[in-house]
């Protein structure tokens, strides 16, 4: 970025007495933290309320008086009721299967393609790259209906495969990895070729390990997106045994007709926990990952 032209010197700030400066500083600190804490309460309120409600007995939930802490601990009942009423752990497992399955294929497909786009000369390379860029603008809701019809015709609805297939190709991963691979030094690739390494080995043993930050970032991004995706599973999955967390939560909420808030919040806690805990453990990785995938 070029430097900006600063405006000509304005009125010189009036000299401030030390006491005034301290008072001003204190005031601005209180103001800043006031805003930040108010915002933080807004952000955290649903989480706090979810946890508290999940350990409250119905009598306290339906009491008009709002209490922050339950008088009677009812967590065991709520959680065991939620777990017995719906296969919540199964939903979580489905989420893991879904995310891992999608991610593995995404990486296997996108990495060689990105390497070829970045480092090899072959006919149609530029045309393919244009298609990748156009693909970036097309959300999954657009090809959803033809894909649904095709999967229905093939008898593949209600399978893990049907849940994963629209996401096997991530044009975003190709785009991101291509940017990353382009800055990989050509000399190292030439040297590897002279050593008799095949292109296949160069991709997986030399270039891929160097792109670890981009791959980690993309993995976080992909897992968060597919763990939380509702639209596509809602279309292809009607069998509750295969439901990923959001769809499972929806089935559960429908079955409960939204009245048993203790069990509902217990279920919400169980299904939100895996990703939130992963985030709290690897929070730098998450934040860096989202930043990198967001900015590039």
């Amino acid at each position, binding site marked *: *970025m070029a430097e*900006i032209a*600063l405006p000509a010197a*304005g009125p*010189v*700030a009036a000299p401030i007495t030390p006491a005034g400066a301290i008072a001003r500083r204190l005031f601005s600190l209180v103001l800043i933290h006031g*805003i*930040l804490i108010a*915002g933080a309460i807004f*952000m955290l*309120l*649903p989480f706090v*309320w*979810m946890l508290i409600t999940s350990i409250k007995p119905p009598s306290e939930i339906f009491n008009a*008086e*709002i209490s922050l802490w339950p008088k009677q601990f009812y967590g065991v009942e709520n959680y065991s009721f939620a777990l017995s009423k719906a296969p919540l752990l199964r939903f979580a497992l489905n989420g893991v299967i879904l995310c891992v399955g999608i991610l593995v294929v995404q990486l*296997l*497909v996108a990495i060689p393609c990105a*390497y*070829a786009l970045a480092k*090899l*000369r*072959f006919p*149609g390379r530029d045309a*393919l790259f244009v298609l990748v860029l156009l*693909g970036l*603008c*097309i959300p999954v*809701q*657009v090809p959803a*209906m*033809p*894909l649904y*019809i095709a999967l229905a015709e093939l008898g593949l609805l209600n399978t893990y495969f049907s849940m994963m*297939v629209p996401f096997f*190709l991530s044009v975003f991963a*190709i785009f991101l990895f291509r940017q990353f691979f382009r800055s990989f030094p050509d000399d190292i690739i030439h040297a590897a070729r002279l050593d008799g390494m095949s*292109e296949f080995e160069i991709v997986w043993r030399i270039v891929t390990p160097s792109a670890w930050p981009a791959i980690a970032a993309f993995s976080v991004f992909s897992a*968060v997106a597919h*763990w*939380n995706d*509702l*639209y596509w599973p809602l*279309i292809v999955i009607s069998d509750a045994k295969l439901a990923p*967390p*959001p*769809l499972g*939560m929806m089935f559960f*909420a429908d079955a409960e007709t939204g009245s048993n808030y203790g069990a509902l*919040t217990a279920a919400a806690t169980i*299904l*939100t926990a895996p990703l*939130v805990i992963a*985030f709290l453990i690897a*929070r730098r990785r*998450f*934040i860096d990952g989202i*930043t990198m995938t*967001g*900015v590039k």
Partner: protein
Amino acid sequence: MNAIALASAPPAAMRRRLWIERFTGLGFVLPAFILLALTILLPLVVLLLLSVTNYEFGGVSADWLGFKNYAKALADPVIRRAVVNTLVYVAIVVPGGVFGALLIAILVQRRRKTRSLYEVIYFLPVTSTLIAMATVWQFLLHPSLGPVNAVLKWFGFGQIAFLSEPSTALATLAVIGIWQLLGFNMILFLAGLTAIPRDLYEAAEIDGCAGGIDRFLTITWPLLGPTTMFVIVTTMITAFKIFDTVAVMTRGGPIGSTEVLLYNIYLEGFQYFHTGYAAALTFIFLAFILVFSAVQTFALDKKVHY
């Protein structure tokens, strides 16, 4: 003779090398290309064909309609309302989600000890499962049982049925939308703020821009321009795709006040199986997304020439 053979030897090796490169290149992109064709290109063509017929999923035949589906969609009061609702939702989420995030990012950036704590708190909703949290929000906003109304009552306000009142339902969903993406935008702004050289602020101080607002207007805001543009466009696209909270919390109600475009496409395509009509609606949806993306490309171009 000999000389020619010698001279052609290196080019032959080079040509061989080029051939290898071509074939490996094509081989490496083949799986991606097949998937691209099967999951994006072909479906787009099929979608286009469906949109000019009256095909209904499960039916045996379909008649050619030309652009009647599109004409019908543009005249359909339900679809018009859905588009307006979606745009109203975007119009609330974008300023709230972008400028709220900018404010928080600027305040957080200067904290040394508490910065990472605030980052985690604000980012938490981004990783949480929105569907599960939507159920919690429903409870929070419950007219008689929820704490939000209890607080309102304590302050002497009347009870508000946020989600079952046509005048407040869409705005309530928008607030939840802001809650979900504020942390994401904050992280993007923090990255943008870190990229601004510190000495610019020092230079500005020498030039007499002492106050925080002065500094913001002369340095932060102009230099953050490209980031802001990017955040605005991604927020627009995300907001335009609103579906989850509608599907779980309001199902388009009350009285259609939260019917949004994607939810109507879902209903037409996968509940009523008006496949041809839903295909036309999908193209209308795509047209909006493409306009937003075009704005983004334009904005990123500007970033280069900044």
